[in-house]
């Protein structure tokens, strides 16, 4: 089967620094692929390259066989490649529901003029978005806070909201940058289940950057490891966990017993 997303020899330079160095890998439809690596390894940069927020210095990104690197970010989103951010980003002074509704932008059939004039199509759109937003709210369990201003939410909910925004765009592939950071174990596991459900029920392919190794091991079908911008390993969680290079560069000794 042809891969959904292909990263081919992608390189990104910032001045003298090579943040991403000749990285290649494929993402298959319906899988959860994690990218891990030390701080500054180039993971976030890679995500920005895939979603076209940055221009590649070299190499190509293909989605469904078509080149998507170096297009405008919104065009890439339109094709179905959607990214959430490392820092939680939401529309602060909108409510949770408004956040989700506005993120349905790509699904609108009416033109902006249509919306301005309140055409039939536009009203149908509004109705559809509302219903879909409510579905997403239900799916992610945000009912209680649907009408809260986003700026009043605690971290954990912000993460979920970030994901809801991503979902509202109805992506084929969603890029999640550290979705579990700042969440405790319990919350992390809830989100892990959620992401898996999304993949199964909505057939969303997931590309993930994360430092929470237990979660990564649990959720991923495959893992790609970056170090100093280069890919140093790729494989199943099992393979990666036992890869000496990865342990040396990233995982460290499992032993936390530093003693007190």
């Amino acid at each position, binding site marked *: 089967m042809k891969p959904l997303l292909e990263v081919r020899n992608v390189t990104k330079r910032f001045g003298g620094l090579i943040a991403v160095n000749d990285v290649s890998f494929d993402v298959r439809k319906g899988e959860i692929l994690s990218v891990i690596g030390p*701080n500054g390894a180039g993971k976030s940069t890679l995500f920005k390259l895939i979603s076209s927020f940055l221009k590649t210095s070299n190499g190509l990104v293909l989605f469904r066989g078509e080149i998507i690197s170096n297009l405008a970010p919104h065009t890439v989103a339109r094709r179905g490649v959607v990214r959430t951010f490392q820092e939680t980003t939401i529309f602060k002074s909108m409510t949770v529901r408004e956040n989700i509704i506005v993120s349905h932008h790509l699904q609108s059939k009416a033109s902006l003029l249509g919306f301005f004039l309140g055409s039939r199509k536009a009203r149908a759109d509004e109705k559809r978005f509302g219903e879909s937003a409510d579905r997403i709210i239900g799916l992610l369990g945000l009912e209680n806070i649907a009408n809260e201003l986003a700026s009043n939410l605690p971290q*954990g909910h912000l993460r979920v909201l970030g994901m809801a925004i991503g979902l509202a765009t109805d992506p084929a592939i969603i890029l999640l940058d550290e979705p579990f950071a700042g969440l*405790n174990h319990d919350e992390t596991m809830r989100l892990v289940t959620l992401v898996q459900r999304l993949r199964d029920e909505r057939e969303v392919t997931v590309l993930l950057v994360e*430092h929470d190794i237990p979660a990564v091991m649990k959720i991923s079908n495959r893992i790609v490891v970056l170090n100093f911008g280069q890919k140093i390993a790729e494989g199943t969680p099992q393979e990666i966990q036992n890869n000496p290079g990865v342990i040396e560069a990233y*995982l460290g000794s499992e032993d936390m017993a530093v003693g*007190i």
Partner: protein
Amino acid sequence: MNEILKLDNVELYYDHVYALKGVSVNLHEGETVALIGANGAGKSSILRAITGLSKIKSGSIHYKGKRLDGTLASDIVGQGIAMVPEGRRVFPYMSIKDNLLMGAFTRSDKAGITKTLESVLERFPRLKERYSQQAGTLSGGEQQMMVIGRALMAAPKILLLDEPSLGIAPKLVQEIARSIVAISRDEKVSVLLVEQNSRMAMSISHRTYALSTGEIVLEGNSKELMNDKRIKEAYLGGDL
């Protein structure tokens, strides 16, 4: 062991959000205490209350037997309480050196500052290597070390750490955990550690408080709590 910090029935709220609903916590000299809890439980709020960044609504905070709440936030560090805030908060366009010197802002003993500076650089050799580099260009782990060093520059009696492992690669998390242990041992500093990484926090602390929606729900010896069923389920995850 002497009690150095004591929060008694502290309440705190932002606008209309109740963050702390009567929290009592204490910390002894030389002790490391972990604060764990879900998102929005109010862990950071406790630290903000101590450092005066947020005013408490009722209750009291005592430091070395004296009332601390009501003191101006900028005066608290001078009394010996230093904090490493959530999200690191380096001064991105200042060199490591200037960042560290900012840590000693309230001190005026030149010789003492130089000595502390040396000991910090010794503890984190990486900082010495990049002494004049702009802090904003450091990697996440390096930044975390720097802000811990920056807090130490105040020669504090109490060190408050807010999620030092956030967004840090596993290997570095271990390094940071080791540093915390070493600091509390070498410098005789009491540490109040807020963590999502409960396993790490509990393994390096004497006592642990578990917080839920603004209230303390559990407290006790860390070693014992690590085996507590409730803690295991809620914060550590049964298996791994």
